[in-house]
């Protein structure tokens, strides 16, 4: 099982550590040649404007976009989710995304850094998804009712299409106030998994384990 981590900018090291902790081998991806032989790709957090620019200049945008839409399992966190989205609000006009996930996301949906936050979320949907996959023997795990989540200038999912399965949601306290807005924060569509928060910044490896199992039981076709 070999997973690539897009290593142009952002939180690469933590994803690498999380993937290795759940038994995957990791390749850092900076050039099109690095895409060969991958069973899945992680798109980390970072600045989405910078990432989309560097994807173009490194020649990775087209091959990666084609591969993900053709079914290469992909896991995007924060800026990585923005790269996967069908539609991006409040982005730059020249900012491109893969269109591999039926969501509309709003960049910096909670506002500036002072609104960035940590919060425990209800993990029922995630636990249900984990129950569908065969448990690897080395990954015996305690079931936990909550999932710790870290939101850093995070995007907000403002719309979802029919194929989107919401795994984790943030309770809505005041949809007109950045400090209260809720909605889907972890979603899945076929081989694509995405979170608006940063699971790699906590010690909880359940989302990485789910992704690695998605990559090992890769569905026959993507979207």
């Amino acid at each position, binding site marked *: 099982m070999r997973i690539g981590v897009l*290593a*142009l*900018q*952002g*939180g*690469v*090291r*933590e994803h690498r550590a999380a993937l290795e902790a759940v038994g995957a081998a990791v390749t850092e991806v*900076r050039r099109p040649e690095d895409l060969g032989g991958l069973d899945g790709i992680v798109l980390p*957090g*970072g*600045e989405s*404007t*910078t990432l989309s*620019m*560097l994807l173009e*200049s*490194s020649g990775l945008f087209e091959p990666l976009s084609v591969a993900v839409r053709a079914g290469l399992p992909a896991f995007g966190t*924060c*800026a990585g989710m923005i790269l996967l989205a069908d539609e991006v609000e*409040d*982005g*730059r006009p020249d900012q491109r995304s893969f269109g591999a996930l039926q969501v509309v996301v709003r*960049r*910096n949906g909670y*506002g*500036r*850094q*002072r*609104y*960035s*936050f*940590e*919060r*425990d979320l209800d993990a029922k949907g995630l636990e249900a998804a984990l129950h569908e996959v065969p448990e690897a023997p080395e990954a015996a795990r305690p079931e936990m009712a909550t999932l710790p989540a*870290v*939101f*850093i*200038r995070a995007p907000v999912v403002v719309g979802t299409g029919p194929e989107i399965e919401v795994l984790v949601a943030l*309770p809505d*306290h*005041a949809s007109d*106030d950045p*400090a*209260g807005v*809720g909605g889907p924060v972890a979603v899945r569509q076929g081989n694509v998994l995405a979170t608006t928060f*940063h699971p790699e*910044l906590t010690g909880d490896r359940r989302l990485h384990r789910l992704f690695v199992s998605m990559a090992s039981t890769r569905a026959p076709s993507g979207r």
Partner: protein
Amino acid sequence: MTPGSMGFMAFQPDPARATGTFTVKRGLADMLRGGVIMDVVDAEQAKIAEDAGAVSVMALERVPADIRREGGVARMSDPALIEGIQQAVTIPVMAKARIGHFAEAQVLEALGVDYIDESEVLTPADEAHHIDKWAFTVPFVCGATNLGEALRRISEGAAMIRSKGEAGTGNIVEAVRHLRSILGDIRKVTQADSAELYAWAKQLAAPIELVREIAETGRLPVPLFCAGGIATPADTSLVMQLGAEAVFVGSAIFKSDDPARRARAIVEATTHFADADHVAKVSRGLGAAMRGEELTELSERLADRGW
């Protein structure tokens, strides 16, 4: 009285959310790794920086090269200027406060800046104390010339450290000295036995808990970026290979012949720092870099500010 953060006390509709935690502060620094933070003095420069792929901009009134040339007291920027830059770009906006000037920091927090740089580039406001950065929701970055200084800033609550270098000179030699000092001492601490760690804590004038953490992990507990003297794509490749995790570029971009191209080239070289072919490609035909300063010709070292 403890000087607290009085700028931002918003009503929290979702009481389960914890804002301003160290994880949240450090998390933004983590997401800037591998990127370039560029000094800008107005909205137009901020747009150029964002267009070139900057991960963040530092809003200030004068770039360090001009502060050095013009002299006088260098202070926090005009809030109107910072707000203009915040409106012009979607990437995080940082701004500088004077060392120890917690009231300037409170103002910057109230403006909603994403990171505060408690910076030796501005004229210090306190000759003995840095800001108590734990009292704030907004994260802080601080400069350091050696490991002890870095750990003292972290113990005060800094969530990102940048090696100081010598700002406004376009001369990389001090940045290299400071990076080598910090990273070299980290390597030595990892070789120390448990008794020697106490001697290290004394020598570094830093808390033993942080020294122990470094001995275990082999790295600072927060990201280490590099600042002060980066002028070319090869400069950024050099400091990234030495172990910096991202770079601040000050005067070098907007004091060069072709700011947009140079900015873009430095962004590319920061990502592909280990690929000399790529650094060569982006270094071609950039026009003149900033003229730069020989260190022996300087009347004052900004890096000596801070304690």
